[in-house]
Each structure stands twice: as structure tokens, then as C-alpha cells.
């Protein structure tokens, strides 16, 4: 029996650990460090209908226990991803989740419709933190109704599970989560980065060429845990949790908070081996808890023990 096996949104993952979108490109770089088939899944970089150049550099800045990024969704576009990149992932014996971004609902539909027919792709993850040009720049992820409609329309063109990745930069994330669930999402990913900024005290210039960017890394972990804890009690779809995970202890904290699977982003830059190391360390945590399967720990911080045992 595989104690780490994780059932999520109809997928069976060999374990709950995956790299987070944007931190793993399309996988080939980390393949130099370990066999990607060890991973529960791979979540690849955001794909948009057309090629995107992204933002000018510097695109990253450091902060205490965190980093800011403003990559700006650089990607070669749907055509190149489908024709040149995904075929290379098809031979992998692990699930591939493709992150989808866009400026209007049609963008998401186009990418989703095409990718959902690709054998290499197991699921989609909608990045709804991007500014919505049609609605005047406010992101899809900050208005429950817009998020619901987006989810519904993407679901209508997708034959594979659709996860919606929530932005933490909102007053009431439970509301957005519920709206997305109502829109038919198969699962949630949370959290995306916190909007942040660094200014160089010597020059007065923002460190990022783009001015502001997204904060990730251990600094944001308590915010992620809080949101997952709150949302997981209010929705019945599974959550891929992320935000500052660096160790198996962190992954367990996310799972106890209510995440069914856990994605690791920034920590890959610090330690390229972090994902396999976490996977390796998880069973001893199951021993410590005296449970057979990692799935018994999902939401244990708020579920009473008797409910799961």
C-alpha cells in the first residue's frame, strides 16, 4: 500500500507533493537533479494563447524570508507549448497540471479547450490573479461573480479537472472560493502570491523593474495556512495548498489545515532537491501521527479525530 497516495479531483497522485506553477518551468531543469516521476504531479508555468515576453528585469527582489517576483507570465504561447513542450512531458509517469492565464475569459477558454485534449495534460489550474482587461484591470480573482463566470465557462470547454488558483489579496477569500465552487471547479489552488513591493533606500527606485510584484516564500506561510483553514471548512472541493512550504513539517501543517495536496514554489530555488526530500520525509510524519494514509490528516486541525479515523 502506498501511504502517500492522494486522490484529488478524480486524479490519483502517488503522493501529495508537486512543484508550484512558475517555479519549475516545464520540468526539464529539475530533471537534472532527480527523476521527475517521483513527484505527485508537476504544475507547469502559466500558458497564454499568444507568446508573452514578460516584464523587464530585474524581475525578482529578495525580502526577509521571502521574494518578490514580477516575471509577467513570460511563455512561448499555446502553440509552442502544445507542439514542442507538452510532447516531452507525455512520457512522464506523473500527472501534469498546466497553469492557464489570460486577460479576458476567452483567453482561458482558448487555452483550456486546446489543452484539455492533450494526452500529456491531466488537469488545468486557472491563474485568476491576472488583471482582467475587459473588466478594467481588476483581477478575476477579486470579484466572486467574475471568478464564478470564468470558472463556469472554462469548465464548459474542459474535459479534465479544473483547479482555480485563488489570489490572497482579497478581503474575503471564502466568498471567492464558494463562488468558484459554484462555478463548477474541481478543486482550488491557494495561495498565489501576496502583492508586495521593495524600494531601494539608496535610490528611491523600486527594485523590481515592474514596480510591484508577488511575495512568496516562508514569509507568507501563516497567511496561506489561515486561508486554507478557513476555506477548506466551507467548500467541499479539494485544495492544493502552497505558500512558503520548505519541509515535510510545513507540508503536514498545510495538510492539517485542510489541503489535500501541497505545492512547493520558491523553496525549489533554495534547494533543488526539496520536493523529493519532502516526499522522503513524509512517511515518518505519518508514523508520528500513527496513520496509514496521508489522506487521513487532511483538515485534521478542524475535523474531529473520530471523523477521520
Amino acid at each position, binding site marked *: 500500500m502506498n501511504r502517500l497516495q492522494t486522490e484529488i479531483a478524480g486524479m490519483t497522485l502517488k503522493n501529495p507533493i508537486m512543484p508550484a506553477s*512558475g517555479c519549475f518551468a516545464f520540468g526539464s*531543469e529539475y530533471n537534472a537533479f532527480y527523476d521527475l516521476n517521483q513527484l505527485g504531479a508537476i504544475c507547469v508555468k502559466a500558458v497564454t494563447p499568444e507568446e508573452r515576453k514578460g516584464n523587464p528585469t530585474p524581475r*525578482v527582489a*529578495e525580502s*526577509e*524570508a521571502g*521574494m518578490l517576483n514580477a516575471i509577467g507570465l513570460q511563455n512561448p504561447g499555446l502553440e509552442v507549448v502544445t507542439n514542442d513542450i507538452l510532447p516531452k512531458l507525455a512520457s512522464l509517469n506523473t500527472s501534469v497540471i498546466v497553469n492557464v492565464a489570460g486577460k479576458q475569459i476567452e483567453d482561458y477558454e482558448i487555452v483550456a479547450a486546446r489543452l484539455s485534449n492533450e494526452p500529456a495534460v491531466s488537469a488545468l489550474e486557472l491563474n485568476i490573479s491576472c488583471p482582467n482587461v475587459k473588466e478594467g484591470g481588476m483581477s478575476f480573482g477579486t470579484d466572486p461573480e467574475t471568478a464564478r463566470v470564468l470558472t463556469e465557462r472554462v469548465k464548459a470547454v474542459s474535459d479534465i479537472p479544473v483547479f482555480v488558483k485563488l489570489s490572497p489579496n482579497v478581503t474575503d477569500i471564502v466568498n471567492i472560493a464558494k463562488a468558484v465552487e459554484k462555478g463548477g471547479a474541481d478543486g482550488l489552488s491557494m495561495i498565489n502570491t501576496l502583492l508586495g513591493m521593495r524600494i531601494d533606500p539608496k535610490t528611491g527606485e523600486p527594485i523590481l523593474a515592474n514596480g510591484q510584484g508577488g511575495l512568496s516564500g516562508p514569509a507568507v506561510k501563516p497567511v496561506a495556512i489561515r486561508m486554507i483553514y478557513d476555506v477548506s471548512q466551507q467548500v467541499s472541493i479539494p485544495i492544493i495548498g502552497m505558500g512558503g512550504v520548505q519541509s515535510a513539517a510545513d507540508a503536514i501543517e498545510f495538510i492539517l489545515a485542510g489541503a489535500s495536496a501541497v505545492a512547493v514554489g520558491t523553496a525549489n530555488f*533554495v*534547494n533543488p532537491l526539496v520536493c523529493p526530500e519532502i516526499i522522503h520525509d513524509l512517511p515518518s510524519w505519518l508514523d508520528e501521527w500513527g496513520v496509514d494514509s496521508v489522506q487521513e490528516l487532511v483538515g485534521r486541525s478542524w475535523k474531529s479525530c473520530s471523523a477521520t479515523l
Partner: protein
Amino acid sequence: MMVADYQVVAHEEIAKNIYEITLRHDPLPAFVAGQFVHVKVDDTSSPLLRRPLSVARIDVEDATITLIYRSGGLGTNRLTKKQVGDTVNVLGPLGNGFMVDQVGSGDHAVLVGGGVGIPPLYELAKQLNERGVRVTTILGFQDKDTSFYVRAFSKIADVYVTSDDGSIGIEGNVSSAWPLIKDPIDWLFACGPKPMLKACVSWRNQVRKASFVSLEERMGCGIGACLACVCETTQGQRKVCSDGPVFTAEEVCL
């Protein structure tokens, strides 16, 4: 490319705020001059990210690499605390490095370095010198106090030194020394601040074979996965960490 703990076998301040650290790992992976390593200066989250530092010396027999770095920020300040016997986590070798193989014996190569752009040129000069290449270097410093490795370069190359305040060598930047090189130049290798690289790129027509520049960019992963470190080239966007840091003067758009 691998990630491993290296042992500090030497570490000292060789000029003002300039440190030389020698790290051993046996077996040592195969390093090429001009490549860099991504260093975790501490096992906590402060600082969180690795620091990219060029390899200044490679000693295959001793299984060591030497880095030369300027301290100043959170990470490099922290690195200065490492003592002989401590370990430092190193990710590398990274990047493409300088293509030494093409440089023939008897060719004349000019190496232009500014400040902490100089370190990777030392290993390059050494290897070129061993190949029988005639090496000329222009080393640009801020001032005498922050200058380093002038004598080391002198043993294997003709050396021109410049400094902003004239406290060592010629007063001015590396451009002041360039016209002093009278012999025809076959190869140009440059590493340093952007304005310096721009000057070097502008000199490329005076170079008979090829000119190379090594770029710097803020990095996340260091291995090509995060797209933090892109630069514009004639072939589109490239990643400094994995497609570079060395590019031809023809292809880079600075």
C-alpha cells in the same frame, strides 16, 4: 550540475570588503572558466535566496574552487562569517562559461574586467596562458583599497590597471587603457558593470576573431526554471543563468 556542501579550506579578506574563499568538494564536478555557482550562505531563511558568484580559480587536483566576492548586502555579509572547516552549500557548476577551446596558441586575447567582474577572468587567463595564448588584461577598480589579484594576473598576463580615483594604475575606467593596447587583438572577453560591457561591445570591430561578454542579472533559481534572469538577444529572450552568463558581443542587446 549538482548541489552539495563544500568545505571552506581558506577564507580571507584580500582587499577592502573583498573576500577570497576556497571551497573543497571531492570529487569536484567539472568546472569551466566563466561558470558560476549559486551559494546558500546560511542554512536558515535569512537570506532566503542563493547568491550567484563566479568561479575565480579551479584546482582540479586539490578538488577546490575559489570565489572572490564583495561583501555589502545581507547575503555576502553573512558569507564573510564562514570559517575554515565550515560548510557552504553550493549549487553548480552553472552557466555556459567561456569557450576557451577555440582560442589557439599564439592568439592574442584581451580580458577586460571591472570590480567583482574580474574574478572569472582569472581562471580564464590562467587557462589561456596554459594554452600558449598571449593574454592582456585590463583590470578596472574603484580605488587602490578595493583592488585585488593584480600581482596574480601579472604572472600570466600583461596587465593594465585603472582606478576611478587614480590611486592605483591609470585614473579613469577601463576605456582609458584600451587605446594603450597596440598589438592586434584576436579575442575579447569582458565581465563587469553594464556600462563597461557596453564599451566592450562597441570595440568588437577592433577584435579579429570574437568578443564575449559575461552578464549579471538578479536571479531566482539559477538553473533556468524561473525566468527571472532573462536578457534580450538577437535570438530573442535568453536566460543569463543557463543560456549565459557568457554571450557573444554580437548577440547581446545591452
